[in-house]
């Protein structure tokens, strides 16, 4: 069995916006832009691994304040309750809203840490030249990219509460500094998923039939 036929192996680039297959010769002779949609053409995302590393480290650092600092405070009849991300989940669980508590737990606690670890694994597996389970890793990447945005639930929830609950001493909700760190983690990991190039998982595939 020979090496798989890829755009790279035949000397061509696939446009990342419209998917048109353009030859390197055309790019050299005419323009570095896609002749169909005019997007800049790259065979692979530039500096994919180092950029993804940088974003993952940033997300990992911000993950700490995102979970330690409060994200919102409720003041009602002179009593104030302050919640962190995890505190908000526990409060929902205690008030018997198990379904909502599980949704918020998955979106706010599980997804961010899963995303960081999954991308870390993907980057390291490419750097170590891992040859097995390429299809499973491709699936892991697709899943990671898909779930990332859902962590914004808590940020939207806080924005709605602070806009709605402002009856002075009766009941007021204010945002906490943890919310900024949390939103930063979500957005930075979204960028990290976009910067990682899943084609790197396959680039050294030869005749090893690994599935």
């Amino acid at each position, binding site marked *: 069995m020979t090496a*798989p*036929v*890829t*755009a790279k192996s*035949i*000397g*061509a680039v*696939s446009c990342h*916006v*419209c*998917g*048109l*297959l*353009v*030859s390197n*010769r055309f790019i050299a002779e*005419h323009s570095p832009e896609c*002749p*169909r949609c*005019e997007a800049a053409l790259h065979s692979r995302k530039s500096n994919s691994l180092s950029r993804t590393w940088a974003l993952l480290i940033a997300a990992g650092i911000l993950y700490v304040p995102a979970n330690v600092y409060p994200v919102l405070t409720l003041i009602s009849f002179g009593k104030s309750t302050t919640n962190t991300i995890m505190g908000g989940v526990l*409060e*929902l669980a205690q008030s018997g*809203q198990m379904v*909502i508590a599980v*949704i918020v737990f998955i979106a706010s606690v599980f997804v961010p840490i899963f995303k960081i670890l999954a991308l870390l694994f993907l980057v390291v597996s490419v750097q170590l030249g891992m040859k097995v389970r*390429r*299809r499973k890793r*491709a*699936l892991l*990447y*697709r899943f990671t990219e898909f779930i990332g*945005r*859902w962590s*914004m*639930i*808590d*940020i*939207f*929830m806080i*924005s*709605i*509460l*602070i*806009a*709605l*609950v402002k*009856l002075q001493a*009766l*009941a007021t909700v*204010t*945002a906490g500094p943890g*919310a*900024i760190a949390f*939103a930063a983690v979500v957005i930075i990991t*979204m960028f990290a998923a976009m910067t990682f190039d*899943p*084609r790197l*998982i*396959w*680039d050294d595939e030869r005749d090893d039939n690994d599935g």
Partner: protein
Amino acid sequence: MAFDKDFNYTEDFRACPECDLIHSVPRIKEGEQGRCIRCGALLFVRHKNSLDRSLAFALTGLMFFILANVFPLLTFEMEGQAESNRLIDGAIAFWKAGYWELGIVVFISSVVAPSAVLLVLITLLLPMRLNRSPYSPQMQIRLLAHLKPWAMSEIFILGIIVAFVKLQDFADVSVGLSLFAFVLMVAATVMAYMTLDEEALWSRLKEIRA
């Protein structure tokens, strides 16, 4: 594989966007899909009346988006006092509280990007329906690809549900008219995306220009 080594660019072959493997473009029927044989990524789709349907859904979505901005989303009542919020109030509240970064993030993901997606789709597809070339189809299609991940209306709906449940514990909350409009806007946007076939878009553009 029979492959002309001396091509400039081609629509007969396509590389998988996720693993780069070359596939010849298959003749698939409307409603069918083609996936990459190596990594399983979705490569080809065909839809019936793709461009017309997508335009219809985008117009519907824009109508509901306008309605979603006019009425309250939720109304909150406690001890005879009431407050309600509109779609943009969340972004404004963050901004006013000094969390301007979050104000911008919420404004972009719940207001700017979702409405821009619909407007770009309409300004792209409506002129084409009338046999004219859109203002700058290349730029519009690229813009659409870049806006897509940041339009988070469907996630905003879950945010509303969680806020609603949290408030129910200590006050009376009721659902406003805008919430229904917002949910319908999200449904229409999802359908506009699902029915849009980009290859049909490019071949129609070629026809119009010829």
